[in-house]
């Protein structure tokens, strides 16, 4: 592995030197002047960032790309065999056999479909709700934002208590007041993912609410006055002024929430463990690569996931592009 890294480093340096030479040759045409001293200072100042980025960002990306076509077993880094598309064949076999990976895809899909509209919708409604200037709305804003302060792992532990089975769980005891029988929320395949969706939206939406609020504050007030003069009702004002003004904020929120949702792993990992009804793609990837040490297969899943996330992100950006 060390030799591979050195080869990649060599190629990287070669490409860089090539570009440097090209830049120097074409400098005159682009009316740039390069000075030896300032170039040396620039490289010196860039050095730490370049080394760290190469080691901890570029190499892992390249490796996860390469490992996807090998049978790398985590404990045997010196014994890596090239297996072409075997990992992908295995993936499709596991999907068609409705194995763990099938569940992981299904649960991740359920989560994304559920949490993206719920969290963004809640964030937008709450932002519109507190977007006024009085004491009450300021207090409400703090309350809505409070769950963001609690980290995902603390949230998971807290909700594990809340959703605990039997009459001791908070939710069960609250529902018990209305005569509802206790339920094992996280073990029941029908309720586990919905619970995780709700608690994730609860934890996260305050943050997007703040982003929407900062977007709302950028909308000029006179647009509302003009709309009111034109006799626009509430819906028209929302659709033609607020929504238009929030569009770029919305795209940003949509993309970040979507990517975050695709990566979901903490909640199922800490709340239920590796179970077929809550396992998600990231969790499957982590479990296969780290716990089961099958880095090859894990990287193949990672590659497919990266392509999927990247593709959908591009699609979203295209769909919601400013016209």
């Amino acid at each position, binding site marked *: 592995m060390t030799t591979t890294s050195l080869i990649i480093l060599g190629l990287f340096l070669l490409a860089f030197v090539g570009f440097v030479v090209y830049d120097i040759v074409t400098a005159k045409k682009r009316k740039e002047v390069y000075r030896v001293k300032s170039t040396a200072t620039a490289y010196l100042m860039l050095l730490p960032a370049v080394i760290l980025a190469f080691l901890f960002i570029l190499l892992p990306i390249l490796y996860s790309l390469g490992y996807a076509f090998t049978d790398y077993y985590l404990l045997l880094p010196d014994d890596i065999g090239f297996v072409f598309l075997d990992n992908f064949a295995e993936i499709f076999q596991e999907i068609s056999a409705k194995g763990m990976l099938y569940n992981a895809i299904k649960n991740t899909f359920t989560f994304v479909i559920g949490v993206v509209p719920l969290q963004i919708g809640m964030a937008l409604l709450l932002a519109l709700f507190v977007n006024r200037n009085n004491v009450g709305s300021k207090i409400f804003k703090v309350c809505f934002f409070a769950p963001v302060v609690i*980290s995902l792992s603390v949230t998971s532990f807290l909700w594990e208590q809340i959703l605990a089975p039997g009459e001791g769980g908070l939710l069960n005891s609250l529902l018990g007041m209305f005569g509802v029988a206790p339920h094992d929320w996280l073990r029941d395949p029908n309720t586990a993912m919905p619970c995780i969706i709700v608690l994730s939206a609860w934890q996260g939406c305050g943050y997007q609410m703040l982003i929407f609020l900062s977007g709302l504050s950028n909308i000029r007030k006179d647009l509302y006055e003009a709309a009111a003069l034109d006799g626009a009702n509430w819906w028209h004002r929302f659709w033609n002024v607020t929504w238009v003004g929030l569009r770029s904020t919305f795209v940003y929120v949509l993309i970040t929430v979507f990517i975050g949702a695709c990566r979901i792993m903490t909640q199922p990992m800490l709340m239920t463990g590796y179970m077929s009804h809550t396992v998600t793609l990231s969790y499957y990837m982590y479990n296969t690569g780290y716990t089961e040490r099958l880095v090859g297969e894990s990287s193949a899943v990672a590659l497919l996931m990266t392509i999927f996330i990247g593709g959908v992100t591009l699609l979203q950006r295209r769909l919601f592009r400013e016209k």
Partner: protein
Amino acid sequence: MDNRLLEMPNFRPNKQPIKKTVKEIIYHIVGIVLSLLFIMPIMYMLATSTKSESAYAESVGTLNMFLPDFANLGVAFDNYTSVLVNYDIWKYALNSFLYAGIVIVLNILVNGLAGYVMAKLTFPGKRLLSFMIIFLIVVPVETSIIPLYSIVKIMLGLKQEMSVVGVILPATISIFNIFLFMQFFQNIPKEYEEAARIDGASTMDVFFKVILPLSKPILATVAVFCFIGVWNDYLWPSMILPAADDGSWPLLPIQTALMSIKSIESITTGEIMASLVITSIPIFVIYVCAQKYIVQGFGTSGLKM
């Protein structure tokens, strides 16, 4: 009849405020209900952290679940001291603070320098690097955690003392922060630098004595996000760091330690909740004190995507 006519003008303006007051009252009732829904789990966490196991069992199923055990507030003190001292939470918290502190300083140095070079200097190869920056921001890095793990493991060898380096170093580089710094530095007028250069300052001097003092808002934003990131990370440290069981000083940060603390057999629900509260306090303080910089963070960065 004259009286009624006189009262008429007063009658109309009064109608509006009543409608408005009703609207305000409804607004506040809805707000209070929503707020309660949002903070109920947190109230439960805070309230339970003050209770002994028997008091907790008693409160289940009543509204006392959301209220502290007022009759016996000494228990709260017991819960907190027991998790802090007996379960070593203060050590884990100190670790987290140390990791976060080191990461903040290194992150600002490494990415700040790179951002400055990319924003202000001309040198051959710059176009390739700016392309790489844009490319690496777009590619989701999180999926490569397993290769990152094997790289770091091989780099550090099997020496456990070195594993702390493995926690800190990967967190010090952030392409996104380079991008943030770049954007901020580009907007600093070059007259500041030129003035310093006439006085004979080197590029390094300019960066440390002119640029950094002018960049406090972006430094604060980066520092705040670094702190939150390091403090809340639990997965990476759990992969890299050994779990201490021989009584020596533990290396785990607080979030990772929570997992093992929670599974201690003799621990009470109150103590678990107390440790969750302790873990959340620093982030709470950060959000209260640095709210301005957090809002600035997504004001300057994300919306230009």
